[in-house]
């Protein structure tokens, strides 16, 4: 493995340092074509460089060294970063009933007294009220995912505006936007309806989602198939883009981060994006987006501006 691995690392570093000239490029292609294992080793080495780049989070807390880095200070700062990240990581709290809130970028995992778990996404507000015969949750703002403990005699109802979602034992998320309420089911089955209209509840099962528009005249809940794991990737600290426009993807990142991504130019905004990204690294996404759309990326007043070059 060692020779292949050594050559692969050398090519990854060279190709990363500067665009390869035609001669070097032909040489690399020849090496890759030479043995099927070479391509795998090259991919692994390139991924290694990217993984090191992920460590660029420390850039914010570490001043650029002019000469050498004090090792102790470095490790100390790394620990500070680690502690900060740990603090940002999901916290497991025990049933503080009443009002649960999250700030922009914060996610909370809350164990409820009945054995259910609520995972509350960024910038959200959730009210919890449990009665002997009804478990009532009010989503005042934002998004939350619920893993509901089975108590058939004690339904679990989420209220989001005039939309209701009812479950007994299952897992689903509810998201409130200005346009409407979106319910994504990851396990089991829930009923979704709009209160006070005589509208019939619709059933939504695992890997389906329902959207209820805010405007009453826009009709009842629409049910469709869902890539539930992708939609709910935020629970793993990720955003999964699967043909989203750049404008929509930027809006999604902006939900989680104080540093906003601003897209200028219609052509750039309409470009579609595919990939997995870390939710708390808007700059990594902005760089990738600028690169794939051939746009420029600038930092303006702390925000990231992606703009068509021409």
């Amino acid at each position, binding site marked *: 493995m060692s020779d292949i*691995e050594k050559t692969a690392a050398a090519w990854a570093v060279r190709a990363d340092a500067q665009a390869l000239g035609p001669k070097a490029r032909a040489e690399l292609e020849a090496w890759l074509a030479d043995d099927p294992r070479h391509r795998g080793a090259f*991919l692994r080495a390139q991924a290694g460089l990217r993984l090191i780049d992920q460590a660029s989070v420390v850039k914010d807390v570490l001043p650029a060294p002019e000469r050498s880095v004090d090792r102790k200070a470095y490790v100390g700062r790394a620990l500070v970063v680690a502690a900060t990240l740990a603090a940002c990581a999901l916290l497991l709290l025990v049933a503080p009933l009443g009002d649960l809130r999250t700030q922009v970028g914060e996610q909370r995992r809350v164990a409820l007294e009945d054995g259910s778990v609520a995972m509350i996404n960024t910038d959200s507000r959730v009210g919890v009220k449990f009665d002997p015969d009804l478990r009532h949750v009010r989503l005042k703002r934002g998004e939350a995912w619920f893993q509901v403990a089975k108590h058939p005699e004690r339904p679990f109802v989420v209220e989001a505006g005039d939309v209701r979602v009812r479950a007994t034992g299952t897992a689903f998320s509810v998201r409130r936007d200005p346009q409407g309420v979106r319910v994504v089911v990851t396990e089991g089955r829930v009923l979704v309806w709009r209160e006070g209209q005589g509208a019939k509840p619709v059933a939504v099962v695992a890997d389906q989602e329902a959207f209820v528009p805010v405007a009453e005249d826009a009709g009842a809940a629409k049910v469709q198939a869902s890539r539930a794991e992708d939609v709910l990737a935020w629970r793993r600290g990720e955003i999964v883009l699967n043909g989203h426009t750049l404008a929509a993807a930027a809006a999604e990142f902006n939900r989680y981060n104080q540093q906003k991504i601003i897209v200028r130019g219609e052509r750039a905004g309409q470009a579609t994006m595919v990939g997995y990204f870390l939710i708390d690294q808007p700059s990594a996404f902005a760089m990738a987006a600028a690169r794939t759309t051939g746009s420029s990326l600038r930092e303006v007043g702390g925000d990231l501006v992606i703009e068509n070059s021409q």
Partner: protein
Amino acid sequence: MSSGQDAIIDWVAIHILPHEGYVRGWLKRTMRQASDVDDVIQEAYCQIAQLDTVAHIRNGRAYFLAAARSIVLRRLRRDRVVSIEAVSDIDAMRVVNDDPSPEQVVGARRELEQVLALIAKLPPVCRQVIELRRIHGFSQKETARRLGVSEAVVENNAIRGLRAILKGLESETASVVSPTAPSAAERASAHVRH
């Protein structure tokens, strides 16, 4: 480089590479020859390099393990390179938890600490090159100027550093998930989904 390839490199960096130690640990327990482990890992990366898209893969660790397992089985049938006691363990490993547990969510953060720890262990020049190039984003030329060395020295140290970090990620304790085999509960409750 096409954007599709680029997305796959990003995906491998985040979802495959951090689990290499874990998959290697499983392979070591099932195979007699250490060199076989390298071969299987190499073949798994080779398969991933042939993918056009990774959008359909939900869980990198589960995918990596499933790929390694099928390579082991194929070799077992082909030339009996692998020891026979592998089979029972392979069956036990058929199932892989596909749901993100809180540990995995936190684990995604742990990979960063892991990489930082590996960088901190590099020899001084090597570490400075990696820090200046990767973390602070200086060009090779600027890095050479700051360190007062030639660009060739920077390049050689970057290669050395990358290799040392990749080597570090091979060890099981470097893996982002707990180094033990999947728990009984994990085996019982989970399944591979595609």
